[in-house]
């Protein structure tokens, strides 16, 4: 089967400082990959480059997504192609309700595909269904995007948006950090619900806990801007028990 994502020899950084020094990573449809690594390893840079954050610069290599040159696409084009990034630090948008934000996002994607806007009744049904999925109460839809949200609520909101937009490829950037057991379960359920033979994900994390709930197909260890080890859950176990320093590339 063709690869969904193919990263070849990727060099990238921010403000003139190179952070990724030659990343190679291939993800097939249906696979969930975990990327673990210590602080400063380049995990967030990798997710930012995949989503097309404008302040990051790619200095070498290529990324192919579903046969397309991902680096030539704008952030919204990547979104339309089915890429979703769950932000490590979700952004506040004062005055914009969750409902309006999601309506704009859902319809932007439909417009890009040449489809009509979603009928209001259908949209509300979808909204309610996905809110129930992340266990958000009714008033959640009226709240301003991430304004006054607790850390856990922000992360649940990311998973809610992921469920709403039904991506082909999800990147979860430390979505599990700082979550209690219940919230972690919601995140795991969110990822598991999206699993299918066509859909893939990268889970960036420090901890094994989330991985136990979603069981990734592949685990990578990222250190100093390079992938130094690739294996299965045994790598996550080793990190949990002996630390990142025990893994040598």
């Amino acid at each position: 089967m063709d690869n969904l994502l193919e990263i070849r020899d990727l060099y990238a950084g921010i403000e003139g400082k190179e952070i990724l020094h030659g990343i190679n990573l291939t993800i097939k449809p249906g696979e969930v990959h975990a990327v673990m690594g210590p602080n400063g390893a380049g995990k967030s840079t990798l997710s930012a480059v995949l989503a097309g954050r404008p302040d990051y610069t790619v200095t070498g290599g290529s990324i192919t997504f579903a046969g397309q040159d991902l680096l030539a696409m704008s952030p919204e084009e990547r979104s339309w192609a089915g890429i979703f990034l769950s932000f490590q630090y979700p952004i506040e948008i004062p005055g914009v309700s969750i409902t309006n934000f999601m309506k704009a996002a859902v319809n932007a994607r439909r417009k890009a595909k040449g489809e009509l806007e979603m009928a209001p009744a259908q949209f509300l049904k979808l909204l309610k269904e996905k809110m129930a999925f992340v266990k958000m109460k009714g008033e959640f839809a009226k709240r301003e995007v991430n304004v006054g949200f607790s850390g856990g609520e922000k992360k649940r909101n990311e998973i809610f948006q992921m469920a709403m937009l039904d991506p082909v490829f999800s990147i979860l950037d430390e979505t599990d950090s700082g979550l209690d057991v219940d919230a972690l379960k919601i995140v795991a359920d969110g990822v598991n619900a999206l699993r299918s033979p066509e859909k893939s994900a990268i889970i960036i994390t420090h901890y094994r806990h989330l991985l136990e709930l979603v069981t990734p197909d592949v685990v990578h260890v990222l250190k100093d801007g390079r992938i130094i080890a690739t294996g299965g859950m045994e790598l996550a176990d080793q990190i949990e028990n002996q630390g990142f320093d025990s893994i040598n590339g």
Partner: protein
Amino acid sequence: MSEDKSILAAAVEKEYSEGFVTDIEQEFVPKGLNEDIIRLISAKKDEPEWMLAFRLDAFRKWKTMAPPKWGHLSRLPEIDFQDIIYYAAPKSDKDRPKEIDPALQETFDKLGIPVGEREVLAGVKPKDTVAVDAVFDSVSVSTTFRKTLAEKGIIFCSFSEAVKEHPDLVRKYLASVVPVGDNFYAALNSAVFSDGSFCYIPKGVHCPMDLSSYFRINASGTGQFERTLIIADEGASVSYMEGCTAPMRDENQLHAAVVEIIVEKDADVRYSTVQNWYPGDSQGRGGILNLVTKRGLCRGENSHLSWTQVETGSAITWKYPSTVLMGDNSTSEFYSVALTNNYQQADTGTKMIHIGRNTRSRIVSKGISAGHSENSYRGLVRMNPGAQNARNHSQCDSLLIGSTCGAHTFPVIRNSNPSAIVEHEATTSRISEDQLFYCNQRGISPEDAVGLIVGGYAREVLSRLPMEFAVEAQKLLSVNLEGSIG
């Protein structure tokens, strides 16, 4: 860079959809301003002697005055007042003097302004009915639903008709809130005003539909000087909306209006404006000079006046809708969104003058600047010695888009009563790269993202507008911001 260009290209294409010119035969008075011109305007309108005397008095005062220079408006040009045509009107069809000219009908249809009553007669959405006074250059061409309103004793007509048919009311209230010599542009308006709307809601009557005036500048080389007078008698209430557009031209055109509102005991007036005069092109050529005096008097106890304005048009805006809170327990609010892009400059705000006891006022101003524009909030809150326990709260926010625009705040507070409380808060923010990227990642394009973020920022004000107006205003904010991000 290529992305910048495509966004800019889109902005140019989608410039100003109301910028067309109506081809219609019009009559003009000669260019320039002197007593003969004023007599001619007055004669054309077949005015009584007292009206002419009022105009001439205003003209003599105006000649002794100088244009105010204190606005933060470096691009306001020296205006040659002798180079303006002060009266332009579509020629009326002598055979059918009561009917609206088809070309005018078409113009207002195109602008989405219902100048006919057909819809309602056909039984369509009677609840959303709005009575409209449509003003084209210097004259009112149509006022709808007058009969329906008259059944309740409400007078809604053009100013010219009010002068003839309700002279007692006009003489009682005209210039009672904005004196003839109040300021240079108000004096000019008092001398040459041509038409506008007149509205009187009698005691205890709640106006059954929203009233609105729509101002259209069409003729080249002219100025528009409208005059609006709204009176809500004891216990009356009305919601009034005002809209305006003009063709795209390289020249500047002057719009100097005066609006006066009188609110008697227990009466309630809600005045909303969506100002969309032609703003000039992306290089700052042309556009309307919008130099306007609007003031309301909360004369009676428990009276209430709210101003809601969305200012997106005009090359220059100089406008301070204000309230004099004279009656005890009277209240007033000023909600404003002012957006400037390209080379637009706006100096706008309000004055809240507290005279009565327990008076309350609230100011919410949201400035948005983009491009090379300058956007200033200028406000005065005055607590007179008798304003026992009066209160004001002001919130002035500025949002900057890009790094070549300016936002300024000039709040003045004069408190002469120790029991009065004045609170002022101000913030300045930018649309952050993080916010844009967050929206983009969800598939929302940069232009739509800016529209969404700005709409959120302005929500507190937009939510005060009547529903249809709010939708229109939200669209205008997005359209007028196109090309503002890079």
